[in-house]
């Protein structure tokens, strides 16, 4: 073989090798969903599993992380945790589930109305069916958020009340009591505005806060009288645009804006406006989940925060939103060993003392309802919780995340002077029907 021929062969070799290597590299990067075993835990043993959850701060003091640490310490099971930012959590889980690299246990939002909702994933076959023990924890009336055709796909962890977080100390200083109804509230708004304070601090630039406000108000205007309103909407019997309750809800926001109930520059405010307003006492209340109120109170010693129901419409009765906003599920394509370990973890979570520990860490209410360990933050709504005068967070049962987005951005527009109540409600109906 001549030297020239050697060189030619080498050139051909390089020519073949480079694309082949490129293809292999691409294939390796792409992963695949036909591997069968799936889960990123990868160990496949019954003494280890992986666990993903939302972690807004990225710190180690996240309640899910603390609980996982406690479980690992008690049982010796190894848990590989994955705390992800909330805004990209849903997308990360979808991508990992489809790529076959998802964790064995995942935190989700019940229902189908959020980007991190569990039911669309269960419908697509990515989530393992759970047993009776998990089913028994689902609060009555919330079954549709966890089940498809009677099969349970997620285990609730705690109940999170959503109302109005109220700075009692600042209210006392300002001489304002929690108003009984809308008229009293609008009067209080005027009084506070004269003192350069505000009844509420809102994050107008953050649509989710606008959506939460609308839902908290809808508790008394819509769901107190018609608890099954979402089911009626699904059946096509009612619409947002024709609902007097929803019209009243959005009109309340317009009236509050005109009465000066919100802080100055509310339309452009961020979440910092809420924390500053509440902690400095320049605003008396805010719409944040009850668990966040506990966190805020813990972070600011001396701050007396409590969850109050939003003032009812004139002549109405107080009502609250409270539901299991988080749930745990198991990856359907996890290894059998990891699945077993995951099931044991969920069973451990269901034990009363561990559930209570989680409630303590997260700042919610026990999944079985209020008990002697109820946080003082929820004292004003304890009667409502005990009497069952509450409905689940509405958007959990909505069919897609676009409905909540339409509500949130619509309310944001109302605050900024765009659009009107009717056009916002019509856009929500459109999003529902997509």
């Amino acid at each position: 073989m001549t030297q020239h021929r050697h060189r030619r062969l080498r050139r051909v070799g390089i020519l073949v090798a480079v694309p082949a290597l490129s293809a292999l590299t691409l294939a390796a990067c792409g992963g695949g969903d036909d591997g069968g075993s799936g889960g990123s835990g990868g160990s496949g043993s019954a003494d280890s599993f992986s666990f993903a959850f939302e972690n807004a701060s990225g710190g180690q003091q996240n309640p899910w992380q603390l609980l996982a640490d406690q479980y690992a310490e008690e049982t010796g099971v190894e848990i590989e945790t994955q705390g992800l930012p909330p805004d990209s959590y849903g997308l990360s889980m979808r991508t990992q589930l489809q790529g076959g690299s998802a964790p064995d246990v995942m935190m989700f939002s019940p229902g189908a109305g959020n980007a991190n909702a569990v039911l669309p994933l269960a419908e697509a076959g990515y989530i393992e069916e759970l047993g009776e023990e998990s089913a028994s924890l689902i609060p009555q009336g919330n079954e549709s958020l966890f089940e498809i055709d009677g099969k349970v796909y997620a285990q609730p962890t705690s109940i999170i009340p959503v109302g109005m977080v109220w700075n009692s100390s600042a209210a006392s200083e300002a001489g304002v009591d929690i108003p009984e109804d809308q008229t009293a509230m609008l009067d209080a708004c005027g009084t506070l505005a004269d003192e350069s304070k505000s009844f509420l601090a809102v994050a107008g630039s953050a649509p989710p806060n606008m959506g939460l406000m609308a839902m908290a108000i809808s508790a008394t205007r819509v769901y107190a009288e018609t608890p099954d309103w979402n089911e009626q909407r699904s059946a096509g019997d009612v619409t947002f645009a024709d609902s007097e309750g929803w019209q009243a809800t959005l009109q309340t926001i317009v009236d509050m804006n005109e009465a000066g109930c919100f802080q100055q520059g509310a339309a452009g405010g961020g979440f910092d406006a809420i924390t500053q307003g509440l902690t400095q006492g320049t605003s008396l209340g805010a719409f944040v989940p009850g668990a966040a109120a506990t966190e805020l109170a813990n972070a600011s010693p001396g701050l007396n925060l409590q969850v109050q129901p939003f003032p009812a419409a004139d002549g109405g009765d107080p009502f609250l939103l409270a539901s299991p906003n988080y749930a745990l599920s198991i990856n359907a394509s996890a290894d059998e060993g990891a699945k077993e370990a995951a099931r044991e973890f969920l069973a451990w979570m269901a034990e009363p003392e561990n559930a209570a520990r989680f409630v303590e860490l997260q700042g919610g209410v026990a999944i079985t309802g209020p008990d002697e360990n109820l946080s003082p933050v929820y004292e004003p709504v304890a009667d409502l919780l005990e009497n069952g005068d509450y409905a689940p967070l509405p958007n959990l049962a909505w069919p897609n995340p676009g409905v909540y987005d339409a509500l949130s951005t619509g309310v944001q527009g109302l605050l900024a002077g765009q659009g009107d109540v009717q056009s916002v409600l019509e856009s929500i109906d459109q999003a529902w029907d997509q």
Partner: protein
Amino acid sequence: MTATMGTPQDTGPVVRGSVPAAGGGQPARSRRSRPLITYGRWWWALPAVLAVLLIHYVATAGGALYAFTNWTGIGDFDFVGLENFRRIFEDPASIGSLENTLFLAFGFLVLTNVVGLLLALALNRTLKTRYLLRVLFFMPVVLSPLAVSYVWKFIFDFNGPLNGVLAWFGAAPRTWLADPTLALWAVLVVMAWQTTGMVMVIYLAGLATVSTEIEEAAALDGASTWQRFRHITLPSIRPSVAIASTLMLIQGLRVFDQVMALTGGGPAGATETLATQVYKETFALSNFGYGAALALLLTVIMLVFSVLQQAATRDRS
């Protein structure tokens, strides 16, 4: 002789393979009897071409296919034809995004080019502090758009410095980023503020090629400043105009960072652009099919405007 008399840097004969043997009259049998470049074969570029085709064009075309589906990001999907595009043109929010995108793109194009050219003309010659000023005007370009946007968000805040300055003059404070009419202008200002320095540098490079002799001759012939700019400077920097305007138009059409950081597309979609809506529909609302249709539309718009732009600024001489 050529080789021995040549300079050490003269490697041409070696490369061409025409170097005679040292000390001999017979030319040596060169190992490379042909110029090196002739060894190149078109298929040498094949791996790179394949990689570009696979990673860039095939992947993009694959993504574009989803524009004709109702995929939600998980599970199966159906082909829905042009349904997504019909929805786009029937949805006021999408039309609003399209309008905002075009407003920002053309506003950005005009603002950056006009201000950038004026700065370049001002800092081209004569001014003693021109080098310092060029650095100062160029500095925002090297910053992250997100960092710049968050600084401006603070400036535009209701309790921020801008309203503070207005208060000195007795003006009422404004919610700059929450006002539907002001928010889009605020985004445009931030975009232009950061990028004008880049355009200035492009025009400075163009102005360096303008002959001073011709300008001086025109001045001696009595041409005014405007006439010299119109008939000498501008034709000379036509390539710079083409580059700067094309780059700014494309950058304006795909604006994302500044909108997300300043307003998130709000209030109520008043500053939403096609790029932010693609992100929102795809990743926040899981409408992958609809998001892909919006992305495809944005790509087509960018392609059309870029071609038109190139045609408009082409050197016809």
